[in-house]
C-alpha cells in the first residue's frame, strides 16, 4: 500500500508540473493582453508595451513559468494579479473553501442518493423501483445544470421563497442560513452525478451477482445482507473510480453553478479571471483544480486497493 501511495504521489508531482507548463503556455497564447483591461480603451500602444515590460509579460514564456512555479513551490506564492493588483493567494484562500464546500456537499448528496438507488435498482431488477431509478438517471443526465439552476432560482427561490436565489451566507451568519444558501447550488451540481453513479452501482452489482463466488455464497446459505455486502465491495470498485473522476469534474461544472447562483467561489473567480485576461489568477485556479483532480484519483486508487487488495498488489 505504501509503495502504491509513493508511486502515485511521485507520478502526480510530474503530472502537476506538466499540466502547469501546458496551462502556462496555452494561457499566454490567448489573444489579448491584460494591459488593455487595466489601462482601458484609451491606452496607446506604447502604454500597452510599457505595461508588458513592467510586468514581465515580454519575457520568454519558459522564464515566466519557471518564476511562477518556483514561487508556488517555495511558499504557495501565486503572485499578484495584474488586473486587480491584489495578491492572488489571499483571494484564493477566501474563495477555495466555498467551492470546496459546494463540491463536497454536491458529491456527498450524489453518493448518498446514488448508491442506495443503484443497489435498490439492482436488487429489484425490472420492478417499479428499477424503472423509477432509470427515469431519475435519464432525467439527471439529460437536464443541463444551468437550466436546472435557472428553474431552481425561478421556482423554489423566487416564487416560493424557500431558498435565497443566490449569494453565499457564511457560517458566522448562522448554520441554517449557510446551508440554505448552498442547498440549491449543491442540488443542481449533484443531480447529474446521481444519475451516473446510480447506474454504475446497478450494473456493477448485477455483474458481480452473477459471478461464481456469489453463487457459492448463496449456496452456503449466507444471509442476504451479508451477500450484498460482499457483492458491493467488488461492485463499488468502478464506482469509486468514476466517483473520483466525478469529484474532479465537479470543480469544472461548479463554474456554471457558481456563476448562476452568484457564489463567490473559486470557479466564479476563474470565470471573472478568464473574461479579464487575468492570466495569473486563471493559472492559479486551474492548477489548484488539477491538484484536487489528482488527489481525488489517488484517493480512489487507495480506496480500491482497500476494497480489492489484488488491485494494490498489481499497481
Amino acid at each position, binding site marked *: 500500500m505504501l509503495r502504491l501511495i509513493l508511486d502515485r504521489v511521485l507520478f502526480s508531482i510530474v503530472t502537476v508540473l506538466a499540466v502547469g507548463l501546458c496551462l502556462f503556455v496555452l494561457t499566454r497564447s490567448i489573444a489579448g493582453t491584460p494591459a488593455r483591461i487595466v489601462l482601458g480603451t484609451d491606452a496607446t500602444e506604447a502604454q500597452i508595451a510599457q505595461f508588458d515590460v513592467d510586468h514581465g509579460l515580454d519575457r520568454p514564456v519558459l522564464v515566466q513559468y519557471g518564476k511562477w512555479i518556483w514561487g508556488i513551490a517555495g511558499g504557495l506564492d501565486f503572485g499578484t494579479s495584474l488586473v486587480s493588483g491584489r495578491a492572488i493567494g489571499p483571494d484564493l484562500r477566501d474563495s477555495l473553501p466555498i467551492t470546496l464546500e459546494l463540491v463536497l456537499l454536491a458529491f456527498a448528496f450524489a453518493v448518498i442518493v446514488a448508491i442506495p438507488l443503484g443497489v435498490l435498482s439492482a436488487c429489484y431488477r425490472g420492478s417499479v423501483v428499477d424503472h423509477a431509478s432509470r427515469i431519475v438517471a435519464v432525467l439527471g443526465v439529460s437536464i443541463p445544470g444551468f437550466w436546472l439552476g435557472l428553474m431552481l*432560482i*425561478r421556482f423554489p427561490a423566487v416564487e416560493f421563497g424557500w431558498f435565497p436565489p443566490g449569494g453565499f451566507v457564511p457560517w458566522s451568519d448562522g448554520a441554517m442560513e449557510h446551508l440554505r444558501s448552498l442547498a440549491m447550488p449543491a442540488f443542481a451540481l449533484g443531480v447529474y452525478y446521481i444519475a451516473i453513479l446510480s447506474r454504475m452501482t446497478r450494473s456493477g452489482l448485477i455483474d458481480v451477482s452473477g459471478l461464481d463466488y456469489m453463487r457459492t455464497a448463496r449456496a452456503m446459505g449466507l444471509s442476504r445482507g451479508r451477500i450484498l455486502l460482499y457483492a458491493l465491495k467488488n461492485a463499488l470498485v468502478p464506482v469509486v473510480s468514476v466517483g473520483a473522476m466525478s469529484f474532479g469534474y465537479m470543480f469544472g461544472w461548479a463554474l456554471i453553478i457558481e456563476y448562476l447562483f*452568484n457564489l463567490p467561489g473559486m470557479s466564479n473567480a476563474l470565470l471573472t479571471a478568464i473574461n479579464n485576461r487575468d492570466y495569473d489568477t486563471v493559472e492559479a485556479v486551474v492548477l489548484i483544480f488539477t491538484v484536487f483532480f489528482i488527489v481525488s484519483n489517488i484517493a480512489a486508487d487507495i480506496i480500491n486497493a482497500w476494497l480489492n487488495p489484488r488491485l494494490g498488489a498489481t499497481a
Partner: protein
Amino acid sequence: MTPSNISRRNLIRAATLGGGAIALGQLGAAGIARAAAAAGGTLTVGIPGVPITLDPVNQINHDWMVASQMIFENLIEFDDDGVLKPQLAKAMPTVSADGLTYEFDLRENVTFSNGQPFGAEDVKYSFDWLLDPANKAARRPVFTRIKEVTVLAPLKVRFLLSEPYAPWLAFMTKCMGIFPRGSREGAAPDLFRNGAKGMGTGPAVFEEWRQNEYISLTRNPTYWNKGIPAWERLVVRQLPEDATRVAYIRTGQIDIMSSPPPRDFEQLKVTPGLEGASRPTLGGWVALYMDNTKPPYDDVNFRRAVSCAIDRAAIADKVYRGLMDPSAISAPKSAWWYDAAADRASGFDLERAKAYLAKSRYATGAQMEITIPSTPYLLDCRDAALVVQAHLKRIGIDAKLKVIEFAPMLQSLIRGGEPASMWVQMSPGEPTYLLQNVLTPGQIMSKSTSYDNPAFVALLKQSFAETDQEKLKPLYARVHALLAEDQPIAWIGFAHAANVWRKRVHDFKPNQGLTIDPRPVTLT
C-alpha cells in the same frame, strides 16, 4: 427602519439629515419626511460588470463608476439630467475670451474623508499627477490639452489649455477625481485601485471589496453636502447573470437593479413591490463601424446603402423593446445637438439603400463580416446584429457575424484589425468625445474607421472653441450633414439607462449618464 428599531439616536440623526436636506434643497418634502423616518439602512445595488479598479483616473467601467464616484468628486459634474453643474467648484468656471483659461473658485469647508482640508493645492496635485506620463493614467489622453494648473489662492485654481477645448469640463465626471496632495507618494501601490479609504471628498467612504461578490461603502459623516446620503451603507453587488439579477431584485436581495434584460423589463416594472423606469442616455451609441479604407467599405455609396438598409425602429422595438432610441446620426433625439434632417438622410429607406448600392462598385451585391462582442458591454448587441444581418440581406449584402470576446475585440479594433464591427460605446454625455475618438486621425479608435476628413477635423476644432449652445447648434448641424454625406459609420441608436428598484427605494431616477446615482436615495 422598522418600528421596532426606532431609537432616540436614530431619530436625532434622522432629524439632522432631514434638516440638512432642507437647507440644501436636495430632497423634496416627501423625501425629507422619508429621510427623517428612515435615516440609515443599507442600499444594495446589483450591476452586471466586473470591477477592475476604484481609481478615478483609471476607471473605465461605466457600471462601476457607481462606486468610484461615491468616493471621489470633481470640480464639475454632469447631473442625472445631463446638465453640467458645479461639484467641488463653487460655481461654473470663468472662461477667458480666447477659451484657453479656466478659473475655478472652490467650495469652502470641504474635507477629504480622512479629515484633510480640500483646496486648490489638491486640485493642482491631482491634475498634475494625472497628466504626468510616468503615472500611466488611463484617462490622461482626454486631458492632454491642459497645459498648466496654477494655484491662485487657497480656494482658487486656474487651468491653462494649449488650445480651446470646451468639452474637457464634461469629461471630468467620468474620467477624473480629486485626491489629497501627497496622497500618491509613499502610498501602497494599490491603495487607489482598491478603494483609497479616506482619499476622496465624496458622500461615501470605501469599506470592503469582496472579490467576485461586492464592494461596500459607508456614509461619509463629514461630507460637505449635509444630509446626503440618507443611507448608512451602500453595497454594490456584482451580478453578471441576467436571470440572477432578476431573481435578486424580485426577492429583495438588491434594492436597485442595473441593466434589466429588455425582454423582462416591462414585466418587472409592473411586478408588485417593484418600480422601473428608463430614459435615453446622451452618449451611449450603438453603431456599425466600417473601415473606410477597406473594400467594400471604401465606397461611400456602399456605406450609405448599409446605413439606409438598417431598420432602426424595428431593432429598437423588437430587440431592445424600447430600451434603445433609434438614430442614424451621432446624436440621440433627446440631445440638444440632434439634427432631424441628417437623421432622415441616413435613416431607413429600402429603396434609397438599393439605389445607393446600385451606384456603388458593388451593385451586384457584396459580402461583409461584422465583428460583435460575445459578452454584453452596456447593451447586448448579438440579437441586434442578427437583425442587421437580415436587413442587409434584403438589398443583396451578405453579412457574416464574427463573435469574439470584448477585450481582444477592442485590441483588434485599435490595431485596425476588424473591417466592420458592431458594439456600444459610452461618452460622457456631450457631442464630441466619441466623434473625436473614432473619426479623427491619431486617436485611440481611429483605425476602427480610418476616416480622415480635414473638413470634419476643422469643424470639430471650431466646436471646441465655442461654449454657447445656440452657436454650437448650427455648427453641429454642419457636422451631422458632413457625416451623413460621408457616412463613415452607420449609427443605429442610443442606449437607454434603465433601472428597476424596490418600492422601499425613493427619490431615485435613472441617470442619463448611465451610471447609477445613489446619492439622493432614501429608504423606507
